[in-house]
């Protein structure tokens, strides 16, 4: 981890006042899962207990909460580290202020998709499979055949038209059409 790396030079980040969106925290507070973001007092329990932060040099949940409070919206949404959270919910259970950090990360990811039009490739692929087949993995014919051989009941055929309708009415199909994807997120 970076704290132990003594040779690393510290380069302070300059934040221009114009980058700050003072209304952002209020907008976030209205989103399901991010309601209590303003209660974060930066104790760092989330980061100390985060399994991803243990092995990533820059994924820090505490910093995400602070950046939301400051209104650094664009930096947050464009930072690919946002996609490193494994949603284990340790931070949610351990926060003394009841802030749901994993919920905040999820809200920010939804915003990155909707406002910035970016998404890791893997999720787009899963979504496409889901729209086509009702499952996020396209289950090959050979697998279905094997089920019969193994004495398992046939897999039900999902109602794909209903699934597609859900993608349409929630606006998700439209979002997915225009997203730019990226394959990998660095952790160091």
């Amino acid at each position, binding site marked *: 981890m970076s704290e132990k790396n003594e040779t690393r030079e510290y380069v302070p980040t300059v934040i221009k006042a114009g980058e700050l969106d003072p209304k952002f925290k209020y907008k976030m507070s209205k989103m*399901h*899962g991010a309601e209590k973001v303003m209660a974060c007092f930066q104790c760092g329990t989330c980061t100390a207990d985060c*399994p*991803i932060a*243990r*092995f*990533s040099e820059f994924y820090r949940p505490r910093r995400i909460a602070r950046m939301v409070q400051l209104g650094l919206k664009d930096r947050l949404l464009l930072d690919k580290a946002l*996609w*490193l*959270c*494994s*949603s*284990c*919910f*340790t931070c*949610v*259970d351990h926060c003394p202020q009841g802030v749901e950090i*994993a919920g905040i990360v*999820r*809200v920010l*990811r*939804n915003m990155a*998709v909707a406002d910035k039009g970016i*998404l*890791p490739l*893997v*999720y787009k692929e*899963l*979504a496409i499979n*889901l729209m086509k087949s*009702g*499952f*996020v*993995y396209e*289950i090959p014919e050979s*697998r279905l055949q094997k*089920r019969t051989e*193994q004495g*398992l*009941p046939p*897999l*039900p*055929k*999902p*109602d794909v038209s*209903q*699934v597609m*309708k*859900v*993608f349409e009415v*929630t*606006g*998700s199909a439209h*979002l*997915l059409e225009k997203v730019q994807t990226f*394959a*990998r*997120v660095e*952790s*160091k």
Partner: protein
Amino acid sequence: MSNPKYLLFLGCVIPYRLSSYEISARKVLAKLGVEIVEMPEYNCCGYPMDVINHELMLTLAARNLCIAEQAGLPILALCNGCFCSLNETNKILKEDKKLREKINSYLKEIGMEFKGTTEVKHLIYVLSEDVGYEKIKNAVTKPLIGIRVAQHSGCHVLRPRKYVGRDDPENPTTLKELIRLTGAECLDYMDETACCGNPIIGVNEDVPFQMAKEKLEHVRAVGAQALITVCPFCHIMFDLNQPRIERAFNEKFNLPVLHYPQLLGLAMGFSLEELAINELRVKPTELLNMVK
């Protein structure tokens, strides 16, 4: 008392690549008198779509819940991810009237309505709460005496506490108790509740591999002969990916990873074929020699 009856929710990853979990679970549930009804026309639980659009996840999960409501049966999920999204959505929509109205406006387009009349349970809670320890104990005919294993419950059967609210996320005991009923010893190890890392493997392999490697080291350190899981994603991380983790760190673990119903099935006298033990990547040779 009549036998418990559930709709079995398989999700995507179990039929896609982990039928050993399904096969063994069906075997032990049937023997314990749990009645299983196939879930008709279900779709993905919604979990992987939460990152794209929260309302999409809620609506996909709610569609499955509506099917269960129509059938008048609770859902039994084998996968931690499915349990997470279905259980959470069920609780959120029952409590949050405004959000329920919104999701119901989407569901109306496909002729459905969430009413809040069903329940979602994970396999370990069906076994511990509905079947009961006594009944499982009585079904054990070949106690696995002398076998030492460790458990990995996985995140989403424990956390977030707010929605799961069953076992203690800091010191989970349900799976341990279930393991002890088989006659095997369940060993404690460091950081038992730590995540397997699998959820982000699609964007970055380095971090999940380090997380899984650390877990395998901790389990090995206490001398466990196998790790027991109850989630397909955790199982893939520790079993299927174990050779890749070994190569990445130039280590040798050779630690078998069994689905809990496989362990219980062995203690109930099922054969290796009946429990699809041969489908495991890391062969539990030492453990099986002790069972014979």
